[in-house]
């Protein structure tokens, strides 16, 4: 029995690491030089090209007549060239064909540079590797996200701003409501009310997020627009409200467990000192459950910035750099969710999407690590004097 549990446990850990490795490897293609990238992508994608030729046609990349180079083109005119496997440094397989004279401004995978940077190429041509890397970073640091433009722009700023906006709104709404609901159910509700409310809120956690997104898209958006007369029907507030609907049940459920786990004797001791139920709840029980409640909020944050479907449907999904909560926003997760389906395999855009996956992972990982190592101790010290 024990060995099978161990097996399952280690298998799941291994799977988690494999997923992470996969995401990082795909993202890493961004940062190695263009030619190396080409080789790697070629060798990894070629087999699928062989076996399932209709799924991905590298030849399409060479089609210079394509006016929308980022679109997958199964009707490539030169099927004969659809066999670049094993050909090291075949850069032409990328969509952004450099040989096309019609699009001189297009990204050139040979150098990894935009035409605007061509001057630099001359001076630093000896180290294309460094150049490519710098260039990728410069692009990621840009301030607009237009991955399918003629000059694709991969500035992450609008996405990070959008993520921060919606996550903050979602947490500002979701965490207090979730915690208050947990306090109510744990300490104030009559038993029959508790038995009804607790599962009802937790049921919301199992709600398909597409339904929540739909609800926000239709109902909440109109409500907010009527209320504020805002210009954009879908905006970060609507998205934040939608995300908070996903956050509340998580915060509620975990916070309620933490609050119920506080010994009832503490409540008696506090009431015996002449405090009200409410004072007892927020001055004794809540601090006593602080680590659990904090973990609840943290998981809520994780849910908010990781949530994809609600973010796609309710935020307006426009990558604006605006800080205004009443303007549309687009989150990192929503970007991956909405663009991964149509991105060209192995392209720079593809690498950037995976890179954003790494960002999401690193963010939630460091959020948890910082909490575990630092904040939790401080919190316990602050509220419990240890």
């Amino acid at each position, binding site marked *: 029995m024990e060995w099978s549990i161990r097996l399952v446990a280690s298998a799941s850990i291994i799977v988690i690491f494999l997923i992470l490795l996969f995401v990082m490897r795909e993202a890493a293609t961004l940062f190695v030089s263009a030619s190396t990238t080409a080789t790697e992508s070629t060798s990894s994608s070629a087999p699928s090209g062989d076996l399932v030729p209709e799924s991905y046609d590298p030849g399409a990349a060479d089609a210079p007549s394509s006016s929308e180079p980022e679109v997958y083109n199964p009707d490539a005119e030169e099927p004969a060239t659809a066999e670049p496997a094993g050909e090291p440094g075949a850069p032409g397989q990328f969509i952004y064909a450099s040989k096309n004279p019609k699009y001189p401004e297009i990204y050139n995978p040979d150098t990894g540079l935009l035409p605007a940077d061509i001057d630099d190429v001359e001076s630093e041509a000896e180290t294309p590797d460094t150049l490519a890397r710098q260039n990728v970073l410069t692009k990621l640091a840009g301030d607009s996200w237009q991955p399918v433009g003629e000059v694709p722009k991969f500035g992450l700023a609008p996405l990070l701003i959008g993520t921060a906006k919606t996550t903050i709104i979602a947490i500002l709404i979701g965490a207090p409501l979730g915690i208050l609901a947990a306090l109510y159910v744990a300490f104030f509700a009559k*038993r029959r009310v508790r038995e009804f409310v607790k599962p009802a809120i937790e049921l919301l956690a199992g709600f398909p997020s597409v339904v929540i997104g739909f609800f926000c898209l239709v109902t909440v958006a109109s409500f907010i627009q009527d209320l504020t007369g805002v210009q954009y029907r879908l905006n970060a507030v609507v998205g934040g409200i939608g995300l908070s609907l996903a956050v509340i049940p998580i915060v509620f459920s975990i916070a309620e467990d933490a609050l119920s786990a506080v*010994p009832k*004797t*503490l*409540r*008696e*001791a*506090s*009431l*015996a*000192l*002449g*405090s*009200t139920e409410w*004072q007892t709840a927020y*001055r*004794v029980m809540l*601090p*006593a459950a602080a680590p659990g409640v904090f973990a609840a909020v943290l998981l809520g944050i994780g849910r908010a910035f990781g949530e994809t479907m609600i973010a796609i449907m309710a935020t307006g999904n426009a990558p604006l750099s605006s800080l205004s909560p009443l303007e549309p926003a687009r989150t990192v997760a929503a970007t991956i969710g909405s663009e991964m389906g149509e991105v060209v395999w192995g392209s720079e855009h593809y690498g950037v999407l995976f890179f954003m996956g790494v960002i999401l992972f690193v963010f939630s990982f460091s959020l948890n690590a910082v909490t575990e190592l630092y904040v939790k101790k401080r919190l316990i010290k602050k*509220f*419990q*004097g*240890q």
Partner: protein
Amino acid sequence: MAKDLPLKIEAHDFSFYYGAKQALHSITLGIPERRVTAFIGPSGCGKSTFLRSINRMNDLIDGTKTDGHMVVDGVDVYSKDIDVVTLRRRIGMVFQKSIPFPKSIYENITYGLTLNERPSKSDLDSIVESCLRRSALWDEVKDRLHHSALGLSGGQQQRLCIARAVAINPDILLMDEPCSALDPISTGKVEELITELKDTYTIVLVTHNMQQAARVSDFTGFFLMGSLIEFDRTRSIFTSPSKKETEDYITGRFG
């Protein structure tokens, strides 16, 4: 029974029910002011129930019911216009198991004081010190006031709880077997403390340790199966009990 002493708490035909189960049967007694009154009796006889009826802690249990009157300072605490929170502020309580809040020692003491007011820092400091001195804890904890109360020993925790109850300056201190989880040395310290506090407070002490009742109390009530069998000066109860059951109990024939 000393009729000359002013009574702080009076029960008149007081009965208590947990749902359908009657736990107290028509208790009538008067607890004199600024004395230590002890309740003894075998476990399950209703001592805690009676004690918790005085500050209405039993309200927290669903489906309870009372009958008769419980009068504190001339007012029936079960009458409709009584504010339970105010009532409890006048009646400190110490529980069987010490229950320090998971906060610092300092915050444990100041908790009751800061509920409705914002006393100045220096006021709080001096109250903390005087309460800790009264509970003979000051020398042991003065260097770690801002450390967690959970780091104290069991005996220290219980004295902290007494200090915490004393801090809100109640008239009455209810103690439900405050020493049952303590070692003899800590018990001695708590008993000393009780003796010291009785000049200021009306103390009601539940104990199943008869020696303790004999040592610290002025009056003793003997409960059996939810009824008050005998209530008198401690000396009389232990030297010449008037009831057969009391004598059997204190001579150790049952209980």
